[in-house]
């Protein structure tokens, strides 16, 4: 029994893991907030006497959303909007990235173009739509042009920032190892600025969606923006929300995907494992 005297008492019961509600606190509070919001909205329409002509309910929107996808009636609208958005975004990247690199690398280009780019980046681009329609008609071309002008400057500004933040010492190191200007562009500038370019595209996506919807409001015969506008004029508030949900979902998905891409291509910028 002497051994018992030497045995230490068991340590007090300390929870070895962080409690569930602390570990997932943000997820829990977010879920609660969204649930309360949706429930309050549903209740207002169902029992609060709000007319469905003014405000649809979440349940009606979800059912309608399933219906339009199930019977395929939404696809022509989605296809038209996706076509304009994709072309506009692609053109912005193809033009914006080289111009941004040029401005980041050349003081002459930067000093010359800076005021113009800044003015365009902060101007209300939708105001150009009437002009674009006069020049390009009411088809997809004028909408693609609006999306392009609306998003290209964000990409230019971000790419330029990305190029300028590259550590000069890395460029000098490359020079020291006999790099040509082309080597520096492809092996230092492009990978160094890539995370900023992706961030620029991410910021541009929101503008792409705004531009395409506004363009479809103004002059279109097909598209999500047109669908929303038509639904609104017919007091079909459920269909309005269906369009909004599709656009918002696209935006959220694109944003998350590009954020994941940023983390993947630039692990050194999103890390706390530095020794």
């Amino acid at each position: 029994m002497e051994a018992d005297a030497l045995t230490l008492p068991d340590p007090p019961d300390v929870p070895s893991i962080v409690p569930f509600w602390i570990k997932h606190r943000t997820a829990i509070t977010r879920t609660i907030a969204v649930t309360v919001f949706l429930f309050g909205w549903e209740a207002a329409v169902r029992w609060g006497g709000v007319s469905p002509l003014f405000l649809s309910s979440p349940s009606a929107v979800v059912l309608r959303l399933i219906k339009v996808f199930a019977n395929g009636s939404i696809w022509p609208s989605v296809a038209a909007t996706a076509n304009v958005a994709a072309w506009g975004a692609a053109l912005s990247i193809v033009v914006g990235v080289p111009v941004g690199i040029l401005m980041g690398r050349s003081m002459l280009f930067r000093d010359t173009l800076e005021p113009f780019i800044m003015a365009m980046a902060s101007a209300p681009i939708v105001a150009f739509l009437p002009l674009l329609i006069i020049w390009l008609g009411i088809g997809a071309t004028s909408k693609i042009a609006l999306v392009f002008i609306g998003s290209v400057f964000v990409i230019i500004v971000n790419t330029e920032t990305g190029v300028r933040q590259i550590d000069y010492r890395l460029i000098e190191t490359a020079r020291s190892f006999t790099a040509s200007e082309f080597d520096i562009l492809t092996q230092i500038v492009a990978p160094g600025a890539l995370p900023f370019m992706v961030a620029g595209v991410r910021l541009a996506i929101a503008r792409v969606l705004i531009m395409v919807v506004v363009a479809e409001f103004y002059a279109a015969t097909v598209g999500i923006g047109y669908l929303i506008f038509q639904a609104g004029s017919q007091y079909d508030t459920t269909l309005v929300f269906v369009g909004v949900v599709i656009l918002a979902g696209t935006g959220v998905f694109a944003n998350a995907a590009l954020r994941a891409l940023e983390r993947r291509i630039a692990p050194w910028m999103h890390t706390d494992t530095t020794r």
Partner: protein
Amino acid sequence: MIEVRNVTHRFESAGRASLPVLNDVSLSVADGKFVSLLGPSGCGKTTLLRIIDGLVQPTHGQILIDGTVVNKPGLDRAMVFQEFNLLPWRTAQHNVEFALGLHGVRGAERRDRAIEALQRVGLEEFAGFYPHQLSGGMKQRVGLARALSTNPRYLLMDEPFGALDPLVREFMQIDLLKLLDAERRTIVFVTHSVDEAVFLSDRVIIFRAHPGSILEALDIDLPPRRFENDEAIKASPAFVNYRNTIWHLLKEQLRRPA
């Protein structure tokens, strides 16, 4: 052989008087020698190293390597930088391959030579690590492997151990000497550590500042393979004597009114 002939350099800045950095510096580095450029901050030793590398064109004077004028970086020289200057988006191995790729080495040969260079600095197990996952000493080993991978005749080292903590620094010095014992190279080594310069070098060139010029050149006659008994060497009368001589020269210099 590297010859520095009457090099004078000024930093030009628009609208202001140019700042003299180096004033009429001449020296030569014989093949196979380890030569340190030692001096206080602002003595232009780093600028001189960059001029030797060909990154900077001197205002006057010239650099000759085996009688040929240097005016741009070349395949015969490789630099190791104080701040490592690794590409953050490349692994250790791909950072080494970066230099090889710029020298036109491709494919399997490039990969094999990168791995082999990492082996020489004892870092092969970390080939797949990114710089942000490596310690300071490891980063500089990658920097060294990158420079060695291209098999340069001249290794130009710009305060390579200046950003490391003292213990790591001593290990790196010993490992560098071991490495150079196995493969004889010509080294130009910039430092402001007197002990480091004496311990590593065959010859120490002491600079004065504002503007940088040579104060004294001192041959260090300590036994070879110093890495084998570094503590004994650093305690030896000869080492202490060299160190005191250099300290004395530097202090005399600083005591004079600027």
